[in-house]
């Protein structure tokens, strides 16, 4: 079904039709992704969705007034009704007790319903040229014409240009509008500009993916990119790259299977990229976070095992005596399998030695065990001295802190407490 030859033929862009579709969807995808970063960061994802649904009545009215379905005629209509929707949401939020989500849902559905009413009204009047209108509902990337490319290209350039020009202002507006206000930026006007650009992106994008999926073209690239970077500049570029990739792949699928719609495939590919990012991205991805959590749990368990052996040696006054698993369990209850695993890893790290008499601390293990006991006891002392907690209330807290305190903090603690010898329970603080 999928042959390399076909893919290469497709990528060579030798057929004009493929060229139109690929370039058109890429331009629209990139423009939406760029502006979508700000929609995403300002937590306006679903406002984008509402705008997308709300352009339908504008498109229908523009068609009824002008009787033509070229983009130059329909876009202004779409733009106006998208803007009206935005204003309505704002108006409802300010003048009623409805929560923003209800306002968005209401505006979205009422505008869309009005659009459907007009669309079906136009259809029954039997005007032959109306057939293309419903392409706006689901998008019809395959119907992109050379003339449309100009529209896409110009709006795309305008969008990206303005975003580049106002990048610093938009960034500030997205992360900290209050600070932007305090810093003397014209926040209202910038918000207006950003909203206008969003409407513009939605209006041009709708023809390729349709009203429902337009929200995804705005949000999904930004959300996917967010998992890979903490820098907005990188996020914008990465989101644009994801959108471009999805556009090419989506176009390819519908080129291969002519009855397959391009727009939905672009969104499926884009969502796929987002889901993969959620799982596999380094640091922020699900697997990376799970791995971090597991490593942390392992570390804590290992330290607890080491500490149990250290305590036993301390109470015997002899750190060279061997200890069997049961004896460790006697000190502190562990899951047997997890204990065995921790003993094994500690041994591999050279902190424990194993012989016939059981496990005993190596030189390095002794130092590490002493370090843990020291931090624990320092913290207990700190809590009793500085927070005036009773000595019998400080153990649990120290139990958690001993895994977290860094050498720098440890030095500060010791200095603050005057290099103490004994803890609140009158035990030695090992050096």
């Amino acid at each position, binding site marked *: 079904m999928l042959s390399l030859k076909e893919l290469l033929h497709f990528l060579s862009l030798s057929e004009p039709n493929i060229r139109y579709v690929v370039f058109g969807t890429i331009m629209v995808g990139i423009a939406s992704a760029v502006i979508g970063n700000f929609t*995403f960061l300002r*937590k*306006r*994802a*679903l406002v*984008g*969705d509402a705008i997308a*649904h709300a352009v339908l009545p504008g498109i229908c009215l523009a068609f009824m007034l002008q009787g033509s379905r070229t983009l130059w005629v329909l876009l202004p209509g779409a733009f106006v009704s998208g803007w009206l929707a935005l204003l309505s949401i704002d108006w409802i939020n300010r*003048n*009623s*007790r*409805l*929560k923003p*989500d*209800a*306002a*968005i*849902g*209401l505006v*979205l*559905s*009422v505008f*869309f*319903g*009005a*659009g*459907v*009413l*007009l*669309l*079906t*009204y136009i259809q*029954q009047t039997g005007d032959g040229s109306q057939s293309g209108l*419903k392409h706006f*509902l*689901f998008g019809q990337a395959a119907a992109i014409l050379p003339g449309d490319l100009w529209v896409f290209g110009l709006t795309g350039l305008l969008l990206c240009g303005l975003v580049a020009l106002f990048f610093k202002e938009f960034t500030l507006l997205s992360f900290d509008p209050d600070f932007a206000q305090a810093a003397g930026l014209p926040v209202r006007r910038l918000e207006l500009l950003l909203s206008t650009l969003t409407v513009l992106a939605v209006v041009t994008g709708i023809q390729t993916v349709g009203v*429902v*999926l337009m*929200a*995804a073209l705005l*949000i*999904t690239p*930004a*959300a996917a990119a967010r*998992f890979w970077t903490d820098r907005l500049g990188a996020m914008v570029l990465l989101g644009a790259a994801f959108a471009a990739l999805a556009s090419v792949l989506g176009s390819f699928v519908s080129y291969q299977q002519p*009855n*397959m*719609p391009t*727009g*939905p*495939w672009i*969104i*499926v590919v884009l*969502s796929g990229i987002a889901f993969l990012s*959620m*799982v596999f991205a380094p640091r*922020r*991805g*699900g697997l990376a*976070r799970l791995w971090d959590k597991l490593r942390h749990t392992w570390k804590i368990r290992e330290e607890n095992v080491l500490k149990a052996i250290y305590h036993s040696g301390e109470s015997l006054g002899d750190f060279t005596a061997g200890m069997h698993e049961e004896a460790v369990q006697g000190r502190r209850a562990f899951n047997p399998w997890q204990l065995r695993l921790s003993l094994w890893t500690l041994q591999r790290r050279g902190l424990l030695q194993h012989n016939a008499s059981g496990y005993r601390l190596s030189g390095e293990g002794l130092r590490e065990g002493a370090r843990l006991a020291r931090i624990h006891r320092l913290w207990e002392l700190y809590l009793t001295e500085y927070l005036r907690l009773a000595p019998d209330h400080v153990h649990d807290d120290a139990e958690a802190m001993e895994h977290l305190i860094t050498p720098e903090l440890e030095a500060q603690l010791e200095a603050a407490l005057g290099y103490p010898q004994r803890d609140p329970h009158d035990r030695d603080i090992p050096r």
Partner: protein
Amino acid sequence: MNTAFLDAFWIILTGSLVAVTGGLLGCYLLLRRLSLIGDAISHAVLPGIAVAFLITGSLSSVPALLGAAVVGLLCTWAIETVQHRAGLQGDAAMGIVFTFLFAVGVILVSSLAGNADLDQECVLYGELAFVIFDQTVLGMPVSTAILLANLLLVAAVLTVGYRGFFLTTFDPAFARAMGFSTVAWHYVLMSLVSLTTVVSFESVGAILVVAFLVGPAAIAHLLTDRLKIMLLLSALIGVSASVGGYFLAAALNANIAGAMTVVLGAEFVGVMVVQSWRKRWRAIPPVASPT
């Protein structure tokens, strides 16, 4: 009785059934700030509906309906997973999940175009007028019967579980302390919403359902503070929109569900305007009495 009158009756009744069910559930969605979850679910059931059509050829069998509704539940679960496991903000999690499912649904629908009685437009706005061409069960069209059964089910669950829904909606912490599982009640509500979106699909389409889940409840919320009155009002508003929508659509010879939505919008604007007038009226300070 003449048939034109009877046709109008069935269409208005069917529309009202959708509107009343949506209004009742919508009140809880609105108060729990889940209105947009209703939106997401209504889009996301599309793949379920498409697969049900693919297998059974229609949506009139109970297993097909339930199967499609499961996808709606899957959608809520997926949104929560993406939000909490992947740590993505709520609105974006919702946006990504439902657009993805909707895209899959559109792909399925277009791949089975021609095989089944399901096309892209009916996904978006359905056709209430077709209800009169249905086969009849118990003297009423099949779609109407299914919607009636769904309304009875929803009303029964909401009545039996009134206390649970009430407490988990207004004071989740207290509800938990009383032994009500907020998660369980949440999923019961989501199941009802999914089921309602699926059964309303053929009459009003997957997207206009949102209008009935949000609109009547939003208007009722402007008018009252009491849950029982809000439920009653939203049902009445739903019925009035369905009557008004029918006549608007008949006048324009256009889509009935779309017209109902427009009537809902007009009702909302009307209530908002009247309320702002009243507020302004009250804001005028009383004339100082001469001393």
